[in-house]
């Protein structure tokens, strides 16, 4: 990698705006410091460096947020975002108002799993707080951002268990059931590892009979044992290396497992067939400069082959994290795709 660094750097700089480059490079560098070669993770430094924002019960751009405890036994927290309720009368408390549906009409509930390759970030990480707020404004949704347990301290299947717990919780909350038919219209959404979690929670939902209106996977994190062409071609070029991907899989998957474990490679040799399951429809967004795109494209193909409804959105010039800052065309185009997907599947 050494010799071609400068070439890599030049190419990368050409496709992203300067502030995006600074943001993602900063993450890359900080994350490099946190991953130890022996597979352990400097969690304290990670939390120190992570930029967080508190929940805010006062409306900001018409959106309010608050934190809740979903499951006491696992200390499973989530941050809920919703449109600000109309001005309450002086005698009521915001607490009461926040637990009413945001609208008498059907509205989407988006359960969001933040990215971070299973190890980094939290719902209160600033970039994800912003993204969730954006989803509320975009779709009139209630967004539930789940604070799932992270690796390497908690490996597979903890993140999936927590995602599942959040979905079950949502299905028992009366105020999340909208429209005259009082129905939960839930979308599972996530970026990077969050996309992976969304898939697996959707499988569990299909197996258990909870209806999911749709999956939205933004640059989902999948992989496998063999090295794909895109991985080889793009290794180290746009913020991400094969080596770091390997580290995160090793930290998440069970000890001794390899990357053909179904969590990592759902359509690989050990995958669970989806043909017979009422698996939901999916919107899969792939960035053309993401080195794992071959796995993501294979995932979309796998869904199609299993007879599941999938729309693939491929953006050539997009790198990882393009959806974090609203300063490119693909950002806005993808947001429109998400909005369309949600509103047409309510």
């Amino acid at each position: 990698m050494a010799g071609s660094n400068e070439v890599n750097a030049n190419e990368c700089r050409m496709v992203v705006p300067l502030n995006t480059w600074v943001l993602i490079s900063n993450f890359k560098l900080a994350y490099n410091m946190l991953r130890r070669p022996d597979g352990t993770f400097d969690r304290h430094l990670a939390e120190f460096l992570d930029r967080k924002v508190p929940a805010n019960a006062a409306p900001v751009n018409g959106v309010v947020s608050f934190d809740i405890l979903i499951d006491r036994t696992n200390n499973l927290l989530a941050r809920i975002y919703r449109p600000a309720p109309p001005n309450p009368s002086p005698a009521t408390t915001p607490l009461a108002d926040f637990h009413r549906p945001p609208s008498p009409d059907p509205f989407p509930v988006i359960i969001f799993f933040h990215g971070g390759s299973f190890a980094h970030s939290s719902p209160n990480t600033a970039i994800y707080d912003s993204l969730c707020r954006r989803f509320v404004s975009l779709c009139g949704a209630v967004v539930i951002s789940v604070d799932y347990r992270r690796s390497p301290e908690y490996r597979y299947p903890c993140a999936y268990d927590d995602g599942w717990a959040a979905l079950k919780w949502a299905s028992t909350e009366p105020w999340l059931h909208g429209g005259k038919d009082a129905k939960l219209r839930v979308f599972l959404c996530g970026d990077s590892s969050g996309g992976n979690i969304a898939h697996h929670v959707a499988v569990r939902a299909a197996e258990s009979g909870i209806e999911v209106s749709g999956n939205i996977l933004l640059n989902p994190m999948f992989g496998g044992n063999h090295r794909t062409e895109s991985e080889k071609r793009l290794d180290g070029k746009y913020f991400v290396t094969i080596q770091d991907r390997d580290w995160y899989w090793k930290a998440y998957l069970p000890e001794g497992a390899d990357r053909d474990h179904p969590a990592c490679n759902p359509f690989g040799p050990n995958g669970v067939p989806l043909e017979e399951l009422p698996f939901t429809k999916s919107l899969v967004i792939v960035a053309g400069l993401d080195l794992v795109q071959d796995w993501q494209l294979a995932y979309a193909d796998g869904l199609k082959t299993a007879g599941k409804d999938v729309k693939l959105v491929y953006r050539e010039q997009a790198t990882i994290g393009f959806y974090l800052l609203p300063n490119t065309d693909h950002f806005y185009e993808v947001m429109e795709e998400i909005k369309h997907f949600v509103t047409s599947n309510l």
Partner: protein
Amino acid sequence: MSSSFRSDMGTDPYDSVGDDRWIIASASDRGSSRGEIDSLLHGAGYRVRSTDLRHVAIGLEQLESTMVGDQCVASSAEAIHYNPSDLTAWVDSMLSELAPDPHLLRHPLSTAAANTWADPTQQRPSLHRLENHHQHRNVPAVSLQSMDEEEDAAIRLVHLLVSCADSVQRGDSEMAGSLLDQTRLALARVNTGFGIGKVAGYFVDALCRRLYPPPPSATGGGGSAANLEILYHHFYEACPYIKFAHFTANQAILEAFQGHDRVHVVDFNLMHGLQWPALIQALALRPGGPPLLRLTGIGAPSPDGRDALREVGLRLAELARSVQVRFAFRGVAATRLEHVRPWMFQVAPGEAVAVNTVLQLHRLLGDRASPEGGDAAAAEPIDTVLEWIVGLKPKIVTVVEQEADHNKPSFLDRFTEALFYYSTMFDSLEGGRVGGSHRGGQQQQQTVVAAVAEAYLQREMCNIVCCEGAARVERHEPLARWRDRLGRAGLRAVHLGSNAFKQASMLLTLFSGEGYCVEEVAGCLTLGWHSRPLISASAWRADDADDASPPRDHQTLVLQDHSSSITSGSNNVVDGDDHLHQHSVMRSHMGSSDRINDTGSGSSCSRV
């Protein structure tokens, strides 16, 4: 589990005081506003001036070059990070730590290459103006019981309490009384073992007290200083807040004392001196040997002829002797902080001074003027005290305060804030305990400790709800306001680094309740429960602290729990005369000329 919100507070301009003021630079202004903070990065939690972006980018590339493979992790493990939000400073400090010799950089970038970032006109104007959502820091967490009924009852209870407080504020005592009755009924339907139910009971009592204040004679005994010390000590044991405060403050003091061989700590509230054994130990172990340490402890006068301050001083002196730290102690007894004068400390020339205030400064605040009137123009006690603190030219001022706004002008606002703040607090007491893996006997003892800790908190709550004027001393204000105030007084923030953060996090792992969290915000640390910060620790120095401070050192405090050694310490107090001879334990006492008499009201409360 706690359920907490602030009532919507769009109107109070003080609520919009954020810890960082910044100017929104929309992309359309990008040409003319080059010197302003990049708004998109600000939304992501980073403050970088647009004009600095290239510098930071180049720095990041250089950093990457120096960090190759395993060496990257190893070398960066030694580094201490300060203020990760300020990318410019962070990158520069990392570069100087990890790549001190620029000639060693592998791929120095040519200036031509450095300018090849994507054309900024490709950026679309931002359609969403980012607002300053770093305001309103103190909005606490909410959780819901899974059963509908329980949830409804809790919501109803909160509603009733707030309505009752509202009637009290409007002076409608009949309505308030009737609501109180309804609240008691609602209380019966809620689980009062934890969460909002538990704390609601206390608030009902407090409201009752405010509506129907007991006659003055009845309030006499409860407020004695000795009782308060017992409550405080149990609070210290039951949860990590005070330990966190002590530990973080000590770390900052230790760093500030680097290179000084005569140091003087002024402690605004000595109590049992629980904070100081760890510092004494750390000073004993520091490279180059310990300094001469003087400690001046301020505390309430002892009513019964005991000299509590002196006793604490003797115990600390004994400890100092055992680790060979030259130590001297002085006690200053005062019923109110604003009566203390700096000459009482007898600061010697050439001494490095540290001022330590844990949960004290808020007691010096007065009523906040209404929003329209702006901040109070008249000098409050806080201004006087801050002035003489600055006058001491301290190397460091450590400030620990509750992270809440319990000093709002409106009673209803204060009440609502307090309701949610203390319910989170109580939750953490409960949660920290339940998770423990102790045997039965210890479990019981823990229950007792937690119960007394609750009594400590109840005192605070009661003061906020029932008292007004000089009697209301629990005037907590959030970090953002303290930042302003301390800044105006001439103090500049000193960033607490990742070291302090890491050690604080490790402290938390000793507590089994997994809900505690430490966060870094612009150089200060907060400790909270489930993402609601409850206490903040920050460090300051005088603006014009002249001598260049010695380079920050990586020495860290040894984390020890000394509380038990203090409480059992009464057996270890060496004979007083022996001490006086060996250590010149000084005591400013209490000739009547020094005793500060207070004609104020102490613990009695007046009704609004």
